[in-house]
């Protein structure tokens, strides 16, 4: 798996007018180019999945500690008969996992991404990205200095905990998805709570999107959004400006209005559509599955996600998770430390902060435990 820099784009897709339901704003994405030769489907509808991960090189015991329960898995198929391949890949064979609880049909799987048939791939949506996020700098400081507590030196960030809400707990989301009128040719969706971008989902074809539309309610969302999502979002009404004299003028004005929607939503989604660090998870005939995390900043939105792009850059699949502010800050702090070889003072300089400010940041996001008491002692003495 290789890490590289990339840019998240919505290549081959165009935003249409949003549909608002209470606090939820759903922006349909429609393909402007030919759909890629890929298909996506939900693996099996009634079996939640328990999964573990591959042993981590710096922390081999982690696979024993890692357990995730995921409500659904996706199958991605390619080739000329992708549709047939989908049903092949959606079937679970006996050897690849065991049924943990027959009554509730809970299955045990072993890996996040695995080949399901000759030309299909099974993976866990959103979870792939979140697992990547949790695994980031999981081993703890790579250089042991006196600044770090014994616990972080011994066990790293085990257990690394982040919390998120299921879509079912998001106010009005299920209703918004139900009443949303899927646009002709729609292949994707930008999901907003008021004007904060919660996530994006893109499927290869319109049929796949239609089949997976309701699954958005199983996705994860940052808990902090749920509180403000209780209020109704403003509805932006179309306006015809100027002084049209004929019906043709009115039509042109409406078309302009339509163009402005697209520009507007691209603008609102700019915190997702920017530079990101990506990691390739799978590469097959003409497409790449990768997980990414938008470029880290001290403030602002961060999105983690996974996507499939074809060779010409067309976005075939995308699913993102928006990090809460604290989660973003945590990842940013760890990243800053890692880039400074886990030297506190150098990390603070890199982040353009004073040392007390940087330490304060660490404490605020819940990382006080990883600093040795003598760091605070020294700060107090200064």
């Amino acid at each position: 798996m290789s890490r590289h820099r990339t840019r998240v784009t919505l290549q081959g897709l165009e935003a249409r007018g949003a549909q608002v339901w209470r606090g939820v704003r759903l922006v349909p994405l429609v393909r402007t180019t030919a759909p890629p030769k890929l298909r996506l489907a939900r693996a099996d509808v009634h079996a939640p999945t328990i999964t573990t991960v591959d042993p981590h090189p710096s922390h081999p015991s982690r696979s024993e500690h890692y357990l995730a329960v995921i409500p659904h898995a996706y199958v991605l198929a390619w080739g000329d008969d992708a549709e047939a391949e989908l049903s092949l890949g959606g079937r679970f064979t006996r050897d690849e996992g065991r049924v943990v609880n027959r009554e509730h049909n809970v299955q045990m799987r072993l890996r996040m991404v695995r080949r399901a048939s000759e030309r299909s791939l099974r993976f866990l949506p959103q979870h792939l990205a979140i697992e990547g996020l949790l695994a980031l700098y999981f081993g703890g400081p790579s250089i042991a200095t006196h600044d770090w507590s014994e616990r972080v030196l011994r066990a790293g960030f085990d257990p690394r905990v982040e919390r998120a809400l299921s879509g079912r707990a998001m106010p009005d989301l299920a209703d918004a998805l139900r009443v949303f009128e899927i646009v002709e040719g729609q292949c994707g969706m930008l999901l907003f709570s008021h004007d904060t971008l919660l996530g994006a989902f893109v499927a290869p074809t319109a049929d796949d999107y239609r089949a997976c539309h309701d699954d958005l309610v199983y996705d994860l969302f940052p808990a902090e959004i749920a509180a403000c999502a209780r209020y109704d979002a403003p509805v932006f009404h179309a306006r015809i400006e100027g002084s049209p004299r004929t019906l043709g003028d009115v039509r042109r004005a409406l078309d302009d209005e339509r163009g402005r929607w697209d520009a507007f939503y691209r603008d609102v989604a700019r915190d997702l559509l920017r530079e990101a660090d990506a990691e390739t998870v799978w590469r097959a005939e003409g497409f790449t599955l990768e997980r990414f995390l938008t470029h880290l900043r001290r403030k602002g939105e961060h999105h983690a996600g996974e996507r499939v792009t074809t060779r010409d850059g067309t976005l075939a699949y995308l699913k993102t998770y928006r990090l809460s502010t604290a989660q973003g800050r945590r990842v940013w702090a760890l990243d800053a430390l890692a880039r400074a070889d886990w030297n506190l003072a150098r990390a603070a300089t890199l982040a353009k902060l004073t040392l007390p400010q940087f330490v304060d940041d660490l404490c605020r996001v819940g990382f006080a435990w990883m600093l040795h008491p003598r760091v605070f002692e020294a700060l107090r003495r200064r």
Partner: protein
Amino acid sequence: MLLHTERIEREDLVLFVNACLAATAQAEYYEDARGQSLALDFVHAYVAHHYRALYARTLAAGINHHAQGRIVFELLTASRDLSPAQRRDEGALVAAALRALPPQRVYRLFEAICARGVSNRRLRAVASQWLATRDLAFDAVKYRRALRTLVAHLHLRTPGETGAFLFARDLRGVRFTTPLFDAWRRAHYAAEAVYELPYSIAEGFARKHRIPRERFLEGIAPRMTARERYRLQGAATRAHVDLAVDLAAVDPTRLALYAWSLARTERETRAAELDDAMTRAIARIRTRSPLALGRVSAVLDDSHSARGTREKHLRPLAVTVGVDALLRASASHYRAHWLSGDERTPWMARRPRGATGVAARLLDALEEGPELVVIVSDGYENDPPGACSEVLRVLRDRIDPQRRMGVVHLNPVFEAATLGAPSFGPHAPMVCVRDVDDVPTALGFARFADGRASLDELRAYLDTRAAEFLAAHGSTDSEPPTEAS
């Protein structure tokens, strides 16, 4: 000031009549049943309190059964401060409305009034006058619980064995000479007697005797009403029983729903028959209320929300399809603009899909220069939101200020959240319709929704409708129910 109050009163009444035309307190695509019910409660209480006389007149305005039931309930439960003349007027309207309503609704209504604890001479007179028009032996079997409640609550006299039948606790040693009562008694013990009872009652006994579904449906078929036959088509197909439904008598909305319930292959093989039935259903409506229109363009909503809900599955689309057929038959020049842009598909194969972008289709319709543009939509526009009212505003302000082109919005859905306010702004008068039969009425009513006709005209309109209604359903002995009976 006077003008202002008049305008408020007119708008209130238009809103109320709209609610009565469309709302049935069932869940709609965008709203749940509870919200609908609450909004209706409010609208009814408000109008009944402020405009009592017009409230009663509305019974005659061609409103739906649910609304008629609500109005009669309101009128019969609160009548303390009325003058004798008012009582007489209301009594005649109520009696006519009860006669026009299906009996199961009337029995449910009376049960609700009894549950409210109302018992007075007026109610007794209304109930006994209505019961006099019914076949009591049949009703005693089919609506046994409701009739028993009513008779016990109001201390009514019942002829012959009816009382003994209604209040029979123990069937041992009881003999009835009325054939239907006797059949009911025997049905407790013998499976053959089940087929002498009305379908809805027989069904319970069939379960008790464990009669196989196909045998039961075959045997009970002659006892079914037309609606029961229609409703049980699916069950009959599953049980491989042929339950012929007389398509010639079905109204356009139900016909469309029936066609969509068929499997695709069957629908395609019976296309000609269904098409013919639709033509005849439309012709029936046109003979009942003649409608002659000039150049008409229609904007028809087949977006995803026309799917309706589980309770009213596909109903908005069925109404839209019916309106399409009616306008096509009634206009000298007609063109339909479906939101999906697909005008070739026959009505039988139409499916609700896509977003609601009314504005672009409205422009298509306006460009043909018609005399009348009819928009049939649930009014929830989202692609982009508000564009339709914006187009209409520009049309009225700049392009067609002389109103050469009329615009009417027919809404098959009552929007409870806005209490049924016009969804496309003030320039598209909105009238709700629940059925295709309502459309001629609705087009006539649109001038009040538009705000061009005055309150007096509206009053006169309701009075005329009331007179027609009384003439059609009024009592045969021309004696309105009085309190003295």
